[in-house]
Structure formats: C-alpha cells, structure tokens
C-alpha cells in the first residue's frame, strides 16, 4: 500500500511540475500577475509530494518490503538500518528519485529566499526549473520507477546492497554531489530567465551569485568526499583515477568555477555578460551529461553498474533538448546583451578572463579524454581507453598557469593596473615562493626535486599573494578589529577558497612524489620496512560482523623500535552476495597516513599485504573542504540580502 502511495505522490508531483512549467512562464510572457503568483505555491506542492514519495520509498526499505523490486534488489533483512536507509539511493531508480527530490528542494529554496526578486523573474526561474523537473519526473515514472512490485510471488529476502556501498561514504557522498549537480539548475534557470526577459544587469548577477556559489560548494564537497571514500574503501590507496564518472563530476565543477568568477565580473563591472550566460548553460549541461554517463553505462568505469540502454537514450534526449533549446535561445537573444564598460590589458577583468579560459580548456580536455573512446567506438575504429597520463600531462601544466594568474590577480585592480604597482606588490611573494620551493625538497626529501619545487612554489605563491593582499587592506585603517569586521563574508570566503587551492596543491604534489607503496607476501611474524616504518604482520583471526564474516589481521607498526600503532585490516565475506571486500585500515595523520590492506590468503597462514606510506594525503581533501567552506561563506554576504527598495533602483537603471 505504502509504495503505491509513493508512486501516486510521484504522479501528483509530476502534475504540479507540468503546471509549474507552463502557467508562471505564460503569466510572465503576458504580464498576468495572477498566473505568475502561482509559481510559489506550485513549488511548495511539488516539493511536498516529491518528499512524500521519497519517504514512502524509505519506509519500504526500513520495513524490508521485498515485494518492491527495487528494495529486493538493493537491500536485505540483515543490513544495518543506516545502510537500509541510504540504500534508497544505492541504485539507479532511487538515486534518480533523490535527484528529483533535490531538484524540487532547490526550487522550493528559490521560492522561499527570493524576497528581493521581482515577480516576473521569480516566475520565470521557477518555471524553467519546473520544465527540468517535468523531464526528470517523467523519466522516473516511465523508465525507472522505484515502486514496481514483484507480485504475487516475491522473494523472501533481498539481494543485498553492494558491499562497497555499505559504508558511511554512501550516506553522505551521493546527496552532496547531487546537491551540487542539481544546484547548477538554479544558475541555469536564472540564465534562461535573463535571456527570456532580456534583463541582464548587476542585480541579475547578484541574484544568481549565491545560488551558483552554494551549488559549487556542494559539488566540491561531494567530489572531495568521493575521493576520500575511494581512498579508504577500494583498498588501493588511490584518490583519483580519472575514471569517466569522476571526470563527469569534475567537468561541471570546473565550468562552475569559471561561472562563479565570471559572475563576479558581471556583477561588479557589467562585462562578460553573454559569456556568463553561456557558462551557466554549460555548467548545467555538463551536470546532465554526467548523469547520462553514469546512468547509461556507455563508458567502461568503476561506477558502471548493469544498466539499460533505453534509460540512457531517454537522458540523452533530455540532454539534447536542454542544450539545443538553451543554445538556440542564446543564439537569438544574446546579441542584445551589451557590455557596460571596458578594461585594459592588465586589469583584474583580463586576469579573470584568462582564468576562465584556462578553466574551460581544462574542462574541454577532460571532456575530450572522456568521450574520445566513445567517438572512436562510434567510428568503428576499435575499442580504446584513455589512460591517466593523458589527463595528468594536460591538467597539471594548465593548473599551474592558472595558479600564477591567481596570484597576479590579487595585485591587479579593476579597469586598469600599472605594471610598477604589480611588480612592487608581488616581488616579495615571488621571492618567498621560489625560495620555499627550492628549500622544501632538501628539508623534507633527500635532495632537489623539480615536481616538488613547482608544486610548493605555486602553493606558496597563492598563500603569500593572498596574505599580502589581506595585509594591504589594513594600510589605510587604524583599527585592525574594525577593519576585520568591515571586510565582507564574500572576501573571507574568497580567501579561504584560494588558500584551499594551495592546500590541495601541496597535498597532491607531496603525495604524488613522496608516497611509498609495497605489495608483499607476509607470513605471521614477518616484518616489512617502508619509509623508516616497520610493519610487523602477526597473523589473522576470524571475526564476525552484522552481515559478514571476516579475517582480521593484526599489524604492528613501529618507528625505530618505538611502537606507533596497531592496525587491523580485514578481508570481509558478505553472507548474502558471497562477495569479498577489502577493508583497509589506516592510521591517519596531518602529515602522513599509514595504510594497510589485505590481498588474498596464501599458503601457510601467509597473506598478500599491501602497505602504503602517504605523506600529506589529508591535505588534498582538507583543501577541497576549505574551498567548499569558502563558497558557503560568500552566501552570508549582506549584499545578497539587501531589501527591496535598493534592488528596484538597480533593476530600473
């Protein structure tokens, strides 16, 4: 009964989406206030029914209703409760329902936090989001309903959730990632509304900025968590594989980063307007492309689950309609958009433009590498895959160039900047960064290392230029605490995010250069030495978990005879699927991780054991979180909550 209620609520939600997609937009086009006013209540109704539907599915999972196909395929009565609930998005149908729920959540959020927004703009934004919701909810209902039943003969117990997904990571990673993916639909809706209404001024940019920043922050946090999850869960100690699905999440993040910066220029200076619109369209299109790649199974990927071509085709149609429709609209309307000011060669605008170009180049590089195998296959030229060296060879240098510009931009002013000023401002940071880059590898490693030199210099370059600019803010002010209060949350958010870039860069550099790894055959009592640490294998003993049995190893780690920690990696065997799972054991630290994972059992109680020494690996996630935190901080800027009177003044200008 409950699942049917869920299906019914989903149908009702679709009904509201369809009305939301038509009535307010028609009202905005014909200036009928009453029609436009429907947008808000419709957004609420759509969210309510979507939520009911989602709760019904969650309920079916919690009571082990295995007559529901989706539950039977992704859950089991032995599964611990928190995983039963997160198994709701552990498969295709449920994760799409989560997608749709989050979309309606964003729609609701726009309708609630839009006090300054003129009615016609609000109606258009919500209307566009209604169109997207209509597409996705129909997709859910027609090709992937999670509420289908096995009746009258249903299985006694479920097929269980994939053991890799029985982890804390599944609880947080997909929702955060989807918050980001779907969040770009708000920026997209704002862009489309701007094109429809022809209004594209500073006020417009100010409305869409917080939404873009927060979606970007969620996406970044989602990617970071995904990387961390892969690191401890897969048992290889890797944190990024350039897997198509990872790339699919990285591309919208890169374009989103460009969009965020471009929006800043559009707000402050009234230039890059049509470029900003285009970026908003791209960011959301790439989010859809990501969904398509993950869900269609067209690419070989670690995330590829058994999938069905019909679903892929449906998303492809949605993708083509979105991109085609929005670009057509753009082609007709964008030429009317005019820049409001000009800028010189050396100016903050120019540097931000260069930053945008670099980010787009990176996104295109990743896109090419991801889709090239598909293209070659479609041409019938064979099956290929593109390896990580391709991505590293292009991504790393472009990133480096961009970081140089990041430092420069902190010294540049809007409109025009004198070369002497830039030199004066940046001479000291440049010297400090280069010195740090030269000295660090001698202190930390055993001699000069070019990669470490580049990585550390660039990271220090960001930190020193940010610090120098921050210090410069106090030049004219007598009271330090006064000035600290005066600076806006946007400014603090920006600094935090930029420092995050540096922290991530340090992490990536050091973990790539100084990591040590060994796969060894170890008999009980044997010791292996790695990076001065001694790992002593003391054998395994059987243990029993909630829904698995495991061999648990004991490995004592010591440094120069002094005991550091004892780790217990496991090799689990899940009862239901009879599948094996490696549970790595990690001793985390700010400056190094010690990582142990079990391979296979060999003869005489010996095991294949993988030991890793990972210096500074935490920094790359820490940096990712700092960036996300920075993005969230900007949203608390008072500018975005200005009252109506001021807004109207700008809107009519």
């Amino acid at each position, binding site marked *: 009964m409950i699942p049917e209620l869920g299906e019914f609520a989903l149908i009702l939600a679709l009904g509201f989406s369809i009305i939301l997609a038509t009535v307010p937009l028609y009202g905005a086009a014909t200036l009928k206030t009453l029609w436009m006013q429907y947008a808000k209540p419709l957004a609420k109704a759509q969210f309510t029914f979507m939520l009911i539907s989602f709760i019904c599915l969650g309920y079916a999972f919690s009571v082990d209703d295995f007559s529901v196909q989706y539950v039977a395929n992704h859950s089991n009565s032995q599964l611990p409760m928190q995983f039963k609930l997160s198994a709701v998005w552990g498969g295709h149908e449920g994760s799409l329902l989560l997608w749709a729920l989050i979309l309606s959540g964003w729609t609701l959020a726009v309708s609630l936090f839009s006090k300054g927004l003129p009615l016609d703009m609000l109606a258009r934004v919500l209307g566009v989001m209604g169109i997207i919701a209509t597409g996705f909810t129909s997709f859910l209902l027609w090709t992937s309903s999670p509420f289908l039943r096995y009746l009258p003969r249903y299985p006694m117990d479920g097929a269980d959730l994939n053991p890799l997904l029985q982890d804390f990571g599944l609880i947080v990673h997909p929702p955060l990632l989807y918050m980001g993916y779907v969040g770009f639909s708000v920026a997209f809706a704002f862009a489309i509304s701007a094109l429809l209404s022809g209004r594209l001024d500073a006020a417009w940019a100010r409305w869409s900025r917080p939404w873009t920043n927060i979606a970007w922050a969620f996406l970044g946090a989602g990617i970071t968590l995904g990387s961390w999850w892969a690191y401890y869960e897969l048992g290889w100690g890797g944190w990024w594989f350039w897997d198509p699905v990872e790339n699919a999440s990285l591309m919208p993040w890169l374009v989103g980063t460009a969009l965020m910066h471009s929006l800043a220029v559009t707000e402050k200076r009234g230039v890059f307007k049509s470029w900003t619109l285009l970026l908003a369209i791209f960011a959301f299109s790439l989010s859809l492309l990501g969904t398509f790649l993950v869900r269609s199974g067209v690419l070989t990927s670690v995330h590829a689950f058994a999938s069905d071509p019909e679903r892929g085709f449906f998303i492809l149609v949605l993708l083509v309609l979105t991109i085609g429709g929005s670009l057509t609209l753009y082609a007709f309307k964008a030429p009317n958009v005019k820049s409001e000011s000009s800028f010189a060669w050396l100016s903050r605008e120019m540097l931000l433009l260069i930053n945008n*170009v670099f980010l787009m180049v990176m996104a295109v590089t990743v896109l090419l590498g991801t889709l090239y195998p598909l293209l070659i296959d479609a041409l019938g030229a064979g099956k290929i*895959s593109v390896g990580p060296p391709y991505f590293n060879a292009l991504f790393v240098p472009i990133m480096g160039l961009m970081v140089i510009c990041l430092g420069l931009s902190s010294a540049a002013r809007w409109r025009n900047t004198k070369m002497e000023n830039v030199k004066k401002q940046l001479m000291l940071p440049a010297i400090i960064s280069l010195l740090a880059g030269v000295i660090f590898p001698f202190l930390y490693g055993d001699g000069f290392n070019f990669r470490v030199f580049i990585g550390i210099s660039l990271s220090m370059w960001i930190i020193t230029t940010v610090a120098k600019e921050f210090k410069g803010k106090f030049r004219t002010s007598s009271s330090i605490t006064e000035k600290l209060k005066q600076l806006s949350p946007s400014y603090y958010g920006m600094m935090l995010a930029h420092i995050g870039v540096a922290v991530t860069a340090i992490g990536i550099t050091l973990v790539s250069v100084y990591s040590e790894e060994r*796969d060894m055959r170890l008999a009980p009592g044997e010791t292996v030495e790695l990076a001065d640490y001694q790992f002593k294998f003391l054998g395994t003993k059987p243990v029993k978990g909630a829904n698995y049995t495991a061999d648990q190893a004991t490995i004592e780690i010591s440094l120069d005879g002094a005991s550091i920690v004892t780790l217990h990696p496991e090799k689990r065997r899940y009862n239901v699927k009879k599948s094996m799972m490696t549970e790595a054991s990690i001793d985390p630290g700010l400056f190094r991780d010690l990582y142990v994972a079990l391979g296979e059992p060999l003869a005489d109680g010996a095991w294949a054991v993988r030991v890793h020494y990972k210096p500074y690996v935490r920094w790359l996630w820490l940096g990712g979180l700092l960036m996300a935190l920075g993005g969230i901080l900007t949203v608390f800027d008072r500018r975005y909550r200005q009252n109506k009177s001021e807004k109207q003044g700008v809107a009519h200008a």
Partner: protein
Amino acid sequence: MTPKRQKRLIIILSIVLGTSLIVGLVMYSLNQNINLFYSANQIANGEAPVGTRIRVGGMVVDGSVKRATDSLRVSFALTDYEKTVNVVFTGILPDLFREGQGIIAQGKMDAQGVFQAIEVLAKHDENYMPPEIAETMKKKQEAIK
C-alpha cells in the same frame, strides 16, 4: 589600422594560436596514452602488437589460476570462449577477481605470447560484464546461430 582594430586583431590571433596549440597538445597526448582493447581471439591470431601497452578482456578460465609460493606472482588464462590467452601478474588482485568472472587486464604482450599485466581490473558489480567483453560474446553467439 586603428588602435581598437589592432587590439582586436591581437586578441583573435592569440585565440587562434592558443587554440591550435592546445588542440595539438591534446591530440598528441591522446595518441600517446590510448590503450587499444583486444579480445583473446585477436591475440591468439597474432593481431596484437608486442611491447605496446594494450588492454585485454575476457573471462578467467576455471582452474587456471596458479600462484607462486614465494611471491605475489600469479598466472591465469583469459578466454572469450573461443581462444585463450595466458596472463601473468605480480601484485594484489581485486576483490571481485575470481574464476569465471569477466575482467580486464592492462599491460603488454611479451615475445613468448604471454600477456604481462601491470593492472587487473574487475568491476564493482558482480553481474557486470565489461562492454567490450559483452560485445565479443554477442558476436560469438550470433556466429553460432
């Protein structure tokens, strides 16, 4: 030429140059880093190059997995149910590696016709079959009909 036009010309020229440079670099690194996929059948027929990095996919033959006693060296055979190819790998195999399971190995063919794998991939989902293998199987089934 007016200064404004000159500025535009510079911008356009730098965009064209920059784009061609990037496209060139991308194409170069793509060609350096693509791994062609071969089926066991193709390898048995000698179609695969020796010493170039390639991928091979197939099902692990039942009873073929043999481990060395003193190291992590393991050898097994891959089949597309037509021909088989012998694979040697040193290291830890993924959890989902087992006999009868579809896997993809990355590495090089040596002169003896043995595939020296440096990476073995099995997928998250045990019902999953790599698209490359699925296609080879399909062709095979059609051929039988």
